[in-house]
């Protein structure tokens, strides 16, 4: 009976195992192999792709920009999500549902589609932002033409797209904090800041950690937004690992070098994944 049960279980999970093995694990290792070949993929060159990258200035710029992009964007997504979640939490009952529904819209629209809207808002000659700002005597701002502003713009769009996700996660976490804790704190004379610092943050710590780490992975590996907004420009200054790997590996058909570039994402992703896993397991044990 026991033997039969595990046979059934094996067949039930077999498609899943095959899918992961063939289309996730195998390509992941294949990528390492590809990274050790020369451009024509005819001979093994060891680490020379890696050492080649280390010597290129663009590579270090991509490393720096990826880190700046991911850290800044995740920070502002988390901050805006946290603040807005509190405001939504204050709204009573039915109205709260409407606000929540409205504020999640950026997350629902496919990022490739909404980034087109941003591209149009940032248009050099017809920018609706510059039109509006001109009434305040500001601008015109070269949203995508200047290095600083282009970096600012890709982060802005990423924050716009990702903040609603944080909002929803934090709102769910806020609802799970018992009201009695706040009431008790009010009676003891705590102000709003003390309530946030001593009640809200400790109670939400786990959700904040998981959401932030998860978002860090997704943001670090982002492709759509930068690809559509700037394609890495001006002068490769907004490239992330993903967009640069695409340009090098697919557009310039240097597959080994492209594979090599994308492999540099692994260490950071792995660290974030380990922490997420630890937190998820902790939650599992608590439940």
């Amino acid at each position: 009976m026991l033997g039969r049960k595990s046979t059934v279980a094996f067949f039930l999970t077999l498609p899943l195992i095959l899918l992961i093995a063939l289309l996730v694990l195998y390509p992941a290792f294949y990528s390492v192999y590809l990274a050790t070949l020369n451009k024509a993929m005819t001979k093994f060159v060891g680490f020379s792709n890696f050492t080649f990258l280390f010597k290129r200035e663009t590579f270090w710029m991509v490393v720096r920009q990826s880190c700046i992009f991911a850290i800044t964007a995740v920070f502002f997504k988390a901050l805006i999500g946290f603040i807005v979640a509190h405001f939504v939490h204050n709204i009573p009952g039915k109205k709260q549902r409407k606000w929540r529904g409205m504020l999640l819209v950026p997350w629902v629209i496919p990022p490739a589609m909404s980034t087109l809207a941003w591209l149009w808002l940032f248009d050099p000659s017809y920018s609706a932002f510059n039109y509006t700002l001109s009434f305040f005597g500001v601008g015109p701002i070269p949203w995508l033409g200047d290095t600083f502003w282009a970096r600012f713009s890709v982060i802005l769009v990423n924050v716009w797209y990702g903040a609603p996700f944080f909002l929803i996660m934090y709102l769910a976490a806020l609802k799970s904090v018992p009201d009695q804790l706040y009431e008790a704190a009010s009676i003891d004379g705590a102000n709003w800041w003390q309530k946030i610092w001593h009640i809200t943050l400790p109670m939400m710590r786990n959700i904040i950690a998981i959401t932030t780490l998860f978002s860090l992975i997704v943001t670090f590996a982002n492709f759509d937004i930068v690809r559509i907004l700037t394609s890495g420009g001006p002068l490769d200054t907004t490239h992330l690992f993903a967009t640069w790997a695409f340009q090098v590996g697919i557009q310039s058909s240097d597959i080994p070098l492209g594979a090599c570039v994308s492999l540099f994402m692994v260490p950071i992703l792995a660290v974030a994944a380990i922490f997420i896993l630890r937190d998820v397991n902790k939650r599992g044990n608590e439940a």
Partner: protein
Amino acid sequence: MSTLAIDKAGPSRKVKLRSMSRDRTWALRWSYFFLVLFAIFFLVPPIYMVITSLKSSAEISAATNPWWVFHPTLSNYVELLTSNQFLRFFWNSSMISIVVVIVTMLISIPAAFALARMKFWGSATLATGVFLTYLIPDSLLFIPLFKMLAVVQDVTGITLLNRWYVLVFIYPTLTVPFCTWIMIGYFASIPKELDEAALIDGASWLQTLTRIFIPVALPGLIAATIFAFTVSWAQFLYPLVFTTSIDQLVLPVGITTTLIKGDVFNWGQIMTGALLGAAPPLVIYAFLMDYYIAGLTAGATKG
């Protein structure tokens, strides 16, 4: 003495209550104020899409007030919805998303059932592995997958590159891990007594799955379906890399590559296309918001 004390306590208590409720009213007013500001930030791009989609090219290039439509026209919609090319993109996207949802469910549900209920050798490791797979981004795998498809194509002679249906095999790597993960959570929350009773009554494993687990975990199933659909619909990198001919493109890639022609940007049509491309996920979200949000939060709170 005692009456005096009560007299004293009475009014002061009232004052405190009133001030607290006044605090609440002000907190609510400020909340609304800031929510309106954030709502503007969040909704400007989609609203601007709608505004631009209603303008003719002439009005756009006249550079009048960009936030207002002076001569609303549906010509962009008519043009796109009668263009074979655009309908082709829509058809490709729909076919892929629907098939991917079905494939995802066929893989995820049995696997989640086995992982939630049948403890077998390596089941805990596999569950963790599924979660880790979910964390592997598409931008890490598109180059090796591209090369793999090219190699398989060379060896077998079956055309894999530049065929939309290949995406049906690739997308499940993005949807299956998460769907399996949240289904494990939903299945595990079903009381064991329920399926034990069914087994005692002589039901097979398959019957317990179809008669008990699937109906009871239906909300989770709907959430997983929505997730799989929206992920497949929005996927941009894989189709951009694996397909190139116009008749093989999906909507996001089609709009970004064919409507943007060199320096000539037909923004009215691009915005209309983007809006139509965003419509299916938005419609699903409008009608099934609670399931959508349940699926979103399930990843971190279930399992």
